[in-house]
């Protein structure tokens, strides 16, 4: 049987779409881990990146830390967290958060540093307080890069949540590992295909959200710069 009919065979079997290990349940689990980890990562990474970006202090440390963390092997990090804290959803999510914070933090920092100093000076000149400068001027102007950071964190989490099935997490990675364990390649490949589609869909959702969140005033200026 060739590959495509293998996939179609597995995916069209109604038994794989029902129950606690059916595709819809696994997709929801996967999305749940993704949303929770991403929210926590934003709550941690966004204020840190914004603060360092606004004050300019500790920027080198932050960029260095974010780059260093990118070199961390996700599988190793998850393994360590779970060995320390025990198998369970909470430790696995802690591992996902750890890997999602650096892109959010680095994106926020880079975005705020890239805001034209003239604009920031003007905001101070019209009498804005520091926090108001940050909240009403720097953050909205930095939104494209902040969003870029959150978007790559989201992809990182979707991918790593799959790997996290190895340390006992549910979600779509279960198909890959359970399938490998019993040498059921149709299950492995179908699970992988669903993950790939989910990642693309999540990315498209973020592209859509970005259009809504980023001020329309920023779009033309940015594309003008890129083509120059």
């Amino acid at each position, binding site marked *: 049987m060739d590959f495509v009919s293998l996939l179609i065979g597995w995916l069209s079997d109604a038994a794989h779409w029902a129950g606690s290990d059916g595709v819809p349940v696994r997709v929801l689990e996967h999305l749940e881990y993704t949303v929770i980890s991403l929210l926590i990562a934003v709550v941690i990474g966004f204020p840190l990146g914004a603060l360092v970006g606004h004050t300019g202090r500790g920027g080198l440390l932050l960029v260095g830390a974010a780059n260093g963390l990118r070199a961390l092997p*996700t599988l190793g990090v998850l393994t360590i967290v779970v060995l320390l804290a025990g198998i369970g959803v909470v430790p696995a999510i802690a591992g996902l958060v750890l890997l999602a914070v650096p892109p959010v933090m680095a994106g926020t920092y880079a975005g705020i540093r890239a805001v034209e100093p003239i604009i920031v000076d003007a905001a101070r000149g019209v009498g804005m307080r520091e926090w108001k400068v940050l909240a009403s001027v720097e953050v909205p102007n930095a939104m494209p890069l902040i969003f870029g950071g959150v978007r790559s964190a989201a992809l990182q989490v979707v991918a790593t949540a799959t790997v996290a099935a190895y*340390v006992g997490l549910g979600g779509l990675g279960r198909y890959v590992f359970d399938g490998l364990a019993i040498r059921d390649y149709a299950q492995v490949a179908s699970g*992988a295909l669903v993950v790939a589609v989910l990642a693309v869909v999540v990315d498209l959702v973020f592209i859509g959200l970005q259009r809504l969140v980023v001020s329309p005033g920023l779009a033309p200026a940015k594309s003008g710069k890129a083509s120059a």
Partner: protein
Amino acid sequence: MTWVLDHLGLLAELTGTHVYLSLVPLVLGLVLAVPLGWLASRSRFARATLLSVSSLLYTIPSLALIVILPGILGTRIIDPLNVIIPLTIYTVALLVRSIADALSSVPANVVAAATAIGYRPLRRFLGVEFPLAVPVIVAGLRVAAVSNISLVSVGALIGISGYGALFTDGFPIGFMTEVVVGVLATLVLALVVDAALLLIGRLLTPWTRAGR
């Protein structure tokens, strides 16, 4: 520490595999990305197409790509190609954009000057445009190298080892030392390769420091 000393042979072997599995895709990716990046810098249509395809491929999680490939290529599940090909794809996806941008940003008067003193297109590309793009390409290669080195570990899940084998060996028996050694070894390798690429980049572009 005694564990490390007792297993130096194993660590050396895993280092070799890890370097092989992460750097072969880096070189292959560079070789493929240069012509594609050139194409993307030449035509708006090629640029749009290549960049959307590469960002789509980059979106696909590594584990998914690694386990799908045997089905598409007919490779055995523990074939190293199942790791080398996805990492090559990621490298190309990362580099095409930076190479295209770097080539587009070579000043038009420099290209015109090279043409005027008699450079033919191929020689002009190799002698003028490509060298001027080297700093940006090296920056892209550094990102790709670090990400490849970290991603190779995922291969251990289907039995293609590198340092990832230390995770899949240590985890089932709860042996923390082995896992920590694996993470540290990965970080050190990433640092060394990153520094090496930085150095190569400097050696290749002496003119960037001539004016200082």
